[in-house]
């Protein structure tokens, strides 16, 4: 079902062709990084810290080096100290230097003939640790007694600047109006404290890479990444190499969701390959993925919302602390920038605290920091609506921002589609249907910025009239099909006559990471620009053939048409067949900074049944409405929406990190880190809302991220509707719900 504004009548955009990379994926031929085998290849294994926080006193690798099959052993001492330079923290995360900061932090790596030899040798490395105190919660790490992770860490954003190091990275504050006045004018004030645990992205393919370093000092890296240009620069930085010594070839990527926008393995594989003169493959186990990569952070949030009896939000005050993991980040700042975005208000005071603690360093995960913030905000708004007796959609419509209103983080909103999402849910079959017996219904909205950044594309026309579209954006959700559709629309060429390819770092121009919902938006823009350049060239070739002015040639539906009508139209294939005669091969490249990323909004409704004797929840029905701008390939837009929703359901209900008292993760497997399985879920109904983004030639907004933002609050609100409970701590697992129901008191 699609709520569509008027839009041009496209021939290809908005259709649902079979994705070009699909066939290889259903016959087992798609090649992922772990599938690559090179002659003489060694296998790497990483020794990881068993401690959450410790000084490395000494490392003795001599026994490991003497073991059978071992060709190379490296430790932090084999890599340069980048200090405060860019990627300095990343380098220390790839391999620890003087200190380990979390359980799972890499300490040494071994390359040997077989996996087993490498593992046995890694276990023979003797590391002498001096164990330090550790912090696993926001309260612990913000306490004055906390063991300091980084000696030089002085909190930013506090005046005057502190003189002593702490684990608080920064204080961020967004202020508008007078929050005290807002509460004084309010008829209703609600406030609560919320907490969420770290959540892993949970991609099914563990991190993997192969590096082959030659005697010329250059290396080729095959990897599973959302951005091979970032892999190139980051790997070079960590090694202290010039970027041009590193070539990165993107393999198929088995899921990312933001978690594969950074590097973990590549510099270790490159260095061991350089030392051994052999290719080196490193593949993480699932246990390593959980202990050493990701996650999105845990948070502690205190929110206070004021409103009038007519539903007008007067103001929001927020205190929001986000974990950053072991190294500094800006998660809380993003939380502040997103927390109240779906609503207008005159007054706000949003204060954020980023903190480091002894857990793996954050990696992005779909709309990072926004889901936790929306969980708090939309739970409280539900409470306001309940208190004043207002429909949860109506209160959101009443406070809905539109174009020209100031966004909470400063600028005015451009064209946005939140109102249309709210109306789509209000008018949906789901919302109009009665709530099933013994169940509850919840509503929530979400926001994400979406980003633009740098992209490149090369489009080459082949002599037989087909086209090859090469971009630098790894395809994590069907973006190749979208690129082909936009090129087909521009050139008037059948979508299956176009071969979309993701090029390596040496065949296509620089392209930023596939993140921030940017690939179809930004890289699509480059594809369109290259195609428009090609159309100009095609018209010129026709004018050469016809010996006429190029202005007399139009490009219509894949053909050069002579507008005065003196010549029969020339097909694209006819022009490419004669290309050598008219001026040589036809190709065009576009490299650009994509401007004008359109903000994304989404509204969800969910029905949840709760077994009040066991605390077990069941998702009975789920509908999501999301503004896609324009859906280039609607099936994969739906796929992004559905995937985001189900990740949000997992986050809300059962996913969590569990650590023992020593800071060791207890549930580092898919058995006990419980991502949703097929039998947990109903179908996820989708309503694609299309409010085109005026800054994109086809109105694309980007759809990858915002779908994960509303589910946490939507489900909490449904649980409230079913039970009367306000669940403010995630996950809402059966023990938590039963305890809240008061049935399980000790």
């Amino acid at each position, binding site marked *: 079902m699609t709520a569509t504004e008027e839009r041009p009548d496209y021939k290809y955009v908005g259709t649902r062709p079979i994705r070009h990379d699909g066939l290889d994926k259903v016959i087992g031929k798609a090649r992922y990084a772990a599938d690559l085998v090179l002659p003489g290849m060694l296998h790497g294994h990483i020794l990881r810290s068993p401690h959450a926080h410790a000084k490395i006193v000494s490392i003795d690798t001599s026994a490991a080096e003497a073991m059978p099959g071992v060709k190379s052993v490296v430790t932090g001492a084999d890599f340069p100290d980048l200090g405060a330079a860019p990627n300095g923290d990343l380098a220390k995360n790839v391999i620890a230097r003087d200190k380990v900061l979390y359980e799972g932090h890499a300490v040494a790596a071994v390359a040997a003939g077989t996996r087993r030899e490498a593992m046995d040798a890694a276990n023979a490395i003797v590391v002498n640790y001096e164990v330090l105190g550790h912090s696993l919660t926001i309260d612990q790490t913000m306490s004055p007694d906390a063991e300091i992770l980084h000696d030089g860490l002085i909190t930013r954003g506090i005046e005057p600047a502190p003189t002593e190091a702490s684990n608080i990275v920064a204080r961020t504050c967004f202020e508008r109006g007078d929050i005290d006045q807002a509460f004084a004018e309010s008829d209703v004030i609600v406030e609560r404290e919320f907490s969420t645990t770290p959540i892993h992205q949970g991609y099914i393919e563990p991190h993997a890479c192969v590096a082959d370093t030659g005697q010329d000092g250059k290396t080729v890296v095959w990897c599973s990444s959302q951005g091979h240009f970032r892999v190139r620069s980051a790997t070079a930085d960590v090694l202290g190499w010039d970027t041009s010594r590193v070539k990165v070839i993107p393999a198929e990527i088995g899921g990312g969701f933001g978690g594969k926008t950074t590097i973990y393995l590549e510099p270790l594989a490159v260095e061991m390959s350089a030392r051994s003169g052999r290719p080196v493959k490193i593949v993480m186990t699932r246990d390593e993925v959980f202990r050493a990569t990701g996650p999105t952070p845990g948070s502690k949030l205190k929110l206070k919302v004021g409103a009038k009896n007519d539903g007008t939000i007067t103001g929001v005050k927020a205190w929001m602390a986000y974990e950053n993991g072991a190294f500094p980040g800006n998660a809380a700042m993003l939380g502040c920038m997103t927390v109240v975005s779906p609503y207008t208000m005159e007054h706000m005071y949003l204060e954020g605290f980023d903190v480091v603690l002894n857990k793996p360093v954050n990696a992005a995960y779909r709309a990072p920091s926004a889901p936790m913030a929306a969980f708090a905000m939309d739970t409280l708004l539900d409470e306001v609506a309940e208190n004043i007796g207002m429909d949860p959609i109506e209160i959101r419509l009443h406070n809905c921002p539109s174009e020209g209103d100031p966004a909470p983080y400063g600028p005015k909103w451009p064209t946005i589609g939140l109102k249309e999402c709210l109306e789509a849910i209000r008018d949906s079959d789901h919302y109009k249907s009665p709530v099933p017996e013994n169940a509850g219904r919840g509503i929530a909205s979400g926001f994400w910025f979406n980003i633009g950044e740098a992209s490149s594309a090369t489009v080459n026309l082949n002599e037989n009239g087909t086209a090859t579209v090469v971009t630098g954006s790894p395809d994590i959700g069907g973006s190749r099909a979208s690129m082909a559709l936009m090129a087909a629309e521009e050139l008037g060429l059948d979508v299956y006559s176009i071969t979309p390819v993701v090029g390596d770092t040496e065949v296509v121009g620089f392209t930023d990471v596939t993140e921030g919902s940017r690939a179809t938006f930004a890289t699509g823009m480059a594809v369109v620009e290259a195609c428009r350049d090609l159309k100009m060239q095609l018209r010129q070739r026709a004018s050469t053939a016809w010996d006429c002015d190029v202005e007399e040639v139009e490009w219509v539906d894949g053909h050069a048409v002579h507008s005065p009508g003196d010549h029969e139209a020339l097909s694209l294939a006819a022009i490419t067949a004669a290309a050598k005669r008219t001026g040589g091969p036809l190709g065009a490249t576009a490299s650009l900074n994509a401007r004008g990323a359109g903000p994304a909004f989404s509204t969800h409704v969910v029905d949840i049944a709760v077994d009040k004797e066991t605390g077990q929840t069941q998702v009975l029905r789920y509908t999501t409405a999301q503004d896609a701008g324009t859906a280039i390939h609607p099936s994969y837009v739906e796929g992004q929406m559905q995937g985001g929703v189900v990740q949000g359901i997992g986050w809300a209900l059962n996913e969590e990190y569990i650590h023992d008292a020593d800071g060791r993760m207890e549930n580092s497997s898919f058995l006990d880190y419980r991502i949703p399985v097929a039998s947990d879920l109903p179908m996820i109904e989708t309503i694609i809302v299309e409010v085109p983004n005026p800054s994109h030639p086809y109105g694309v907004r980007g759809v990858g991220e915002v779908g994960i933002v509303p589910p946490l609050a939507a489900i909490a609100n449904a649980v409230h509707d079913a039970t009367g409970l306000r669940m403010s701590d995630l996950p809402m697992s*059966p023990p938590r719900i039963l305890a809240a129901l008061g049935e*399980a008191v000790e």
Partner: protein
Amino acid sequence: MKYAAPTSVEEAQSLLAGDADAKVFAGATDLVPQMRAGRPEPSIAIDLKKIDRLMALGDNGGSWTIGAATPTSSLTGNGAFSGDLPGLSYAAGLIGSDQIQNRSSLGGNLCNASPAADSVPAMVVNDARAVIAGADGTRTIPVADVVTGPGSTCLGDGEFLVEIEVDKPTANTSDAYLRMIPRTEMDIAVVGAAARVTLDDSGNCTAATIALGAVAPTVVRVPDAETALVGGPISDESLAAVAAAASAACNPIDDKRGTIAYRRQVAGVLAKRAVLQAAERVQNGGAA
């Protein structure tokens, strides 16, 4: 490590007797991942699945004999077995995914000695017996006596489980097993509860057996719940007494899968529901 696939109980016995580090296995669902993670390997991994007797499912008229390595998918897929022992069949079918179901077995589920094993409470309420082979031939003991603690059994050196024997239920008797997991599949039981009840023609309970899993180091029988049921109809009062007795019988731990309070509370709920389901099966004349 060497792999061995004996074709007779005797051959397996001699392999096991000759080597203290040898290990028998059926599904290997724990063995293979442990080896891959670098844990010490056994000297010989003895695959029991090539021994016909250990892969059998035999209807003896009054009882069933289940080979120790017989895949649980063979039990759930057997209509007669599932009709006789619906609770045990259902419990067996809960062990892992469809993939696991083709490898998992009652023998493996029992000898792994996990407190949370789904099939063990269901075997215990049905008074199942374990046939164990050793150097001196075979011995038969109640399944309830096999597990002595988390990860440990009463099996001596050189001994292994050959088969499980379960009597078919007498008239007006049926069983049920329920478990609590956070998701709908793929989890280890946080609490499990099995019940077998016998009702007379007027609906009064004449015999009852109740056992709980995942709430103590080994499966717990709940005699107080059984006493509360026998002699009267299945009523709100007797079910409340069952729930209270079940909760009281728990000796659980706090761990990553559940809290003490949660396990205690839900044990009562599931015990009550399992009794109710077993009683409904009797009233419906067998499997429900």
